[in-house]
């Protein structure tokens, strides 16, 4: 049972099941779409945190930039969505390459501080370039993609569009995580000095991980702008970076589906609680402290424990519970 939970195909199955279950349990197609969009961005954040050991406080840069790029390409250049999406991915990858290259010049906490400072840089950049970004108001009237000449104005129709992209990109991220590249990232996460000593150009690998993460995050940002019809300034704010990171850590850094779980938990809890009490973030703050103290493997750790209980097996040791190792390299 617990062994089953380590298999990538099971994670993809869970992602697909999420796509199918959300319309059954949620009334709002917008919330359902948001879960997939943020789940994707959190999974991209996890490629850096869980797979490369890089805690990036700058994921909002790529998310916000993706929103703006989508809006500008659709509105100013008039490109259709299918042409816009690859361009947005390219913008995200290019920006992430630059931010990553600069940030990894410092290690550890300095790296984290740098990513946060860069997120402020891009926020003020967006704020300053009000002619392009709409400043405080955001970039308004971002259109949804059209299917057969009709825009996907129905929330659930747009959800289907998001879901298709979500599954495709989730599978792509899984492929990356399982590739020779992804397995080298795990080595860098475990022991950077040794990875370098056995011949890997560590910085190049880290920057490449940033580029991939940035591309996927920017795509998520583009999907978000089309969902709400605006590319808002808040998408490039500190809080977006913070939210994506919180989703990733709450979900658990061990595998990509955990991030989707973290995003779903955050958004559904936020949706329920904010209706009752607008200051629900206070509870979130307390929860984060509790996670740091008692639940370091996140929600996914709980899933594993529950599965172990059901199967009456001892729960997996943190060191051996690496979900990304392929079958042949396990005992």
């Amino acid at each position, binding site marked *: 049972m617990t062994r089953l939970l380590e298999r990538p195909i099971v994670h993809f199955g869970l992602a697909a099941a999420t796509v199918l279950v959300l319309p059954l349990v949620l009334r709002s197609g917008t919330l359902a779409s948001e879960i997939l969009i943020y789940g994707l961005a959190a999974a991209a954040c996890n490629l850096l945190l869980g797979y490369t050991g890089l805690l990036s406080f700058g994921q909002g840069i790529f998310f916000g930039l993706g929103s703006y790029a989508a809006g500008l390409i659709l509105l100013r250049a008039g490109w259709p969505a299918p042409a816009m999406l690859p361009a947005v991915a390219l913008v995200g990858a290019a920006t992430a390459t630059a931010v990553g290259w600069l940030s990894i010049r410092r290690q550890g906490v300095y790296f984290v501080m740098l990513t946060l400072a860069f997120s402020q840089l891009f926020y003020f950049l967006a704020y300053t370039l009000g002619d392009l970004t709409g400043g405080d108001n955001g970039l308004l009237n971002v259109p949804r993609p059209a299917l057969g000449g009709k825009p996907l104005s129905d929330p659930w129709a747009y959800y289907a569009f998001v879901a298709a992209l979500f599954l495709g990109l989730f599978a792509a991220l899984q492929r990356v995580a399982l590739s020779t590249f992804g397995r080298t990232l795990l080595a860098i996460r*475990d022991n950077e000095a040794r990875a370098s000593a056995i011949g890997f150009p560590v910085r190049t690998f880290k920057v490449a991980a940033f580029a991939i993460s940035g591309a996927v995050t920017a795509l998520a940002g583009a999907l978000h702008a089309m969902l709400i019809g605006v590319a808002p300034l808040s998408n490039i704010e500190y809080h977006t970076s913070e939210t994506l990171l919180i989703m990733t850590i709450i979900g658990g850094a061990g595998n990509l589906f955990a991030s989707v779980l973290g995003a779903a938990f955050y958004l559904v809890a936020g949706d329920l609680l904010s209706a009752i009490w607008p200051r629900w973030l206070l509870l979130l703050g307390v929860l984060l402290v509790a996670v740091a103290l008692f639940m370091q493997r996140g929600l996914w750790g709980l899933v594993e424990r529950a599965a172990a209980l059901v199967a009456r097996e001892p729960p997996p040791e943190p060191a051996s519970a*690496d979900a990304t190792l392929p079958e042949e390299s396990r005992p």
Partner: protein
Amino acid sequence: MTAASKAVASAIEPPVEPALAADGLGVRYGSFVALKDITLRVRPNSVHAIIGPNGAGKTTLFHALTGRVRAASGRITLGGRDITRTRDDDRVRLGLARSFQVTSLFATLSVRENLRLAAQGRTPWAALAPWRAVSERDAAFAVVDALLARLDLAGVAGRPAGELSHGQQRRLEVGMAMAARPRVILLDEPTSGMGTDDIGAMTDLIRDLGRDHTVLFIEHNMGIVMNISDTVTVMRAGQVLVEGRPAAVRDDPEVRRAYLGNMITGDLR
């Protein structure tokens, strides 16, 4: 070939191009001079030991030779090629690999994956392909499986490296250096912390490595040094004190006075 007969042979033959050489090598940490004017010649397919008291700069010398720290002065050549300014990961590609004094593995990854990565390190740019899965038919696995057998780690191939016993981790540590199929292999205290049984196996392994590799190793166990080395370099305070055949080093009065005293007890076979 015993150490002594090899030394005789090399005295007759004309001088060969050293596999690894340092000329006037110096390293500084801030204002502290860690290495000063080190000149070293490591002959191909020889076993060359570095000994010296703690703080003599032995590990720093390894760091400099492998490119982890930058040389402040002097020149390093690998098979005649100047690598003084070459990055550490690029030196692996040129055939230089090392193990660490303090075990440094990928703790959550399996033993087999540790070795596969080390083998892949020879062609790291091929690993930069985010779409390419690792194939079981990959040539690296042939090297890995041979190493697992040679290091007696086949039984634990699937276990995370962090869960191995100390002796197993030390063997894997050396195996990581071997996996890149280097011409020159640097071992930093390969027997540190090992029990007697493990030490014997490690000694055999190093002697064995000397047949098809060039081995440079740091060691505190004088028995091993005297038994398997072709050449011994004694370091003290960041400089080379004496270099020569084990017997000569053992009998050198300056070495005895300065550092070794009566510590040399290894039997010369």
